[in-house]
């Protein structure tokens, strides 16, 4: 039996709660702002998908502030990275949305935690610089748990007292799709009854600027134009941060609690490009296979897909590869499902990307709409045959195929469906 999603929580550039996020998606309102990294006005990177309402620039948690309504004890804060703070807020929202109290998941052997982040580059740098300044004589005792990849699982497991399973995934921008996929498998195998899946990333110079040095970021200074997936003039992605959490449950467990199923996680698939360390296969070979495997796992065919949530980050190579892969799977069969690239609104949230798209798919299904591509001007040639609506589409989207791709050619795709399994 496929698991159902019973709760979602959002700390994103386009809103810090599901109502605001849904409104932003419906209205095509982006969350990208002008920024000046490291106080250097000369840098070509002028915009980012910022997280609002949090002040977490300092490497010292005592200087941080966050929106009201989240109770985060000091003994957890001291080991957290900024994105860990986002993640706790997102998980609290998701649990509350699923009508679960933190006491319901604490020490419950049937609840697992599946996390994805790249760690905190800012805290790693700060802590190691501090250590090096005294030639190794001393360092922050919580430097390891607050900064390395895995910091999310360490801290969230302790904070929410998770006893079922705790794990983390590191496959760059496919990470949280992997977390979601393996959570689905554990639920299907009956190993657990409930899984909390969370992806999170920081929005700061240390996490994002290194991508500029790969020439992966957009140099566009207009926040409304910088992230333009599939556009002929796209010039790179816009870095962004935040956290998204999802609560997945075995259908019997959701039914037992009387929890409303928002969507079904129908299936997933993965495949790799076997090509380059950072660049996608030019024809999206791995992505296409991952999409086919996700459809097979969900026991559906391309014609059953109502729309596609694209990974498209607004990079020249990546978007082109994905457009070709989608075209080969759908257009060649005479199918034209609407394709939406929500990174046009949020920017690219890296490890968080897959969980964020999953959260958006849940909102699309429960709210009966499909986000558009409001920043798209002229679509690139590789998109010929694809249906890329500019405006939001009203109506139930049916089954959604959601794509993610990461460095190393890692591709992970998911299929989400209305909870009854019947497409709209």
């Amino acid at each position, binding site marked *: 039996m496929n698991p159902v999603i019973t709760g979602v929580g959002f700390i994103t550039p386009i809103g810090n709660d599901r109502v605001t996020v849904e409104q932003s998606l419906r209205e095509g309102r982006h969350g990208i702002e002008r920024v000046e990294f490291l106080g250097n006005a000369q840098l070509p990177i002028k915009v980012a998908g910022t997280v609002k309402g949090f002040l977490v620039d300092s490497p010292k948690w*005592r*200087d941080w502030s966050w929106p009201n309504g989240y109770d985060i004890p000091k*003994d957890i804060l001291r080991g957290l990275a900024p994105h860990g703070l986002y993640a706790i807020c997102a998980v609290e929202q998701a649990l509350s949305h699923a009508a679960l109290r933190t006491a319901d998941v604490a020490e419950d052997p049937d609840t697992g935690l599946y996390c994805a982040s790249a760690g905190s580059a800012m805290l790693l740098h700060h802590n190691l610089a501090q250590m090096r*300044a005294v030639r190794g004589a001393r360092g*922050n*005792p919580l430097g390891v748990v607050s900064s390395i990849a895995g910091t999310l699982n360490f801290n969230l497991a302790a904070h929410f007292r998770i006893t079922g399973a705790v794990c983390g995934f590191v496959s760059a921008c496919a990470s949280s799709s992997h977390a979601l996929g393996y959570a689905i498998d554990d639920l299907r195998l009956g190993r657990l009854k409930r899984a909390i899946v969370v992806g999170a990333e920081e929005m700061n110079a240390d996490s994002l600027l290194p991508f500029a040095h790969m020439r992966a970021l957009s140099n566009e200074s207009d926040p409304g134009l910088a992230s333009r997936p599939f556009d002929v003039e796209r010039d790179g992605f816009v870095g962004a941060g935040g956290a998204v959490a999802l609560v997945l449950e075995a259908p019997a467990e959701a039914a037992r609690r009387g929890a409303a199923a928002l969507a079904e996680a129908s299936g997933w698939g993965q495949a790799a490009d076997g090509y380059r360390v950072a660049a996608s296969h030019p024809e999206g070979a791995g992505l296409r296979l991952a999409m086919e495997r996700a459809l097979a796992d969900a026991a559906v065919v391309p014609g059953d897909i109502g729309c596609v949530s694209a990974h498209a980050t607004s990079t020249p190579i990546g978007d082109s590869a994905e457009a070709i892969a989608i075209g080969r799977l759908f257009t060649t069969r005479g199918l034209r499902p609407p394709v939406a690239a929500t990174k046009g609104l949020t920017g690219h949230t890296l490890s968080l990307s897959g969980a964020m798209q999953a959260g958006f798919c849940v909102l699309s299904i429960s709210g009966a709409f499909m986000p558009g591509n409001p920043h798209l001007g002229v679509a690139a040639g590789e998109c010929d045959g694809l249906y890329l609506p500019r405006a939001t589409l009203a109506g139930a989207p049916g089954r959604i195929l959601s794509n993610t791709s990461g460095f190393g050619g890692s591709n992970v795709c998911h299929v989400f469906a209305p909870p009854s399994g019947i497409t709209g």
Partner: protein
Amino acid sequence: MQPIPPPVPSPALARFPAEVLEAFQRYRAKGEARDVETVLVAAAVDYRPAGSASAPVVSDSTRLLEDMGYDSVAVAELIFFLEDLFEMTITNEDILAVSTIGDLRACVIRKLAGKSGAA
């Protein structure tokens, strides 16, 4: 390439009341033990893992673990903060001998006295 700047100790006290910052500056100028104690007590109150709004009354006999709610990580955090602030090293053996605020004060003052070219 720009060198990594060394940590500057005084901003570490930015969140503390003015009298704590002044005590630290006086200690830097004159090296007096009572100023060390003012800073140390303020830090010990601040680094409690589950701090309540009102600061507890702290005396020499106040125990870090039993009276102030410290756990081993919070002790390590406090020690690291004091090491960095006063630019000295407190060993694991030193820490094991500390159970009260009085013990901690004696330990820090001993370390500072033994530091070559103190303050």
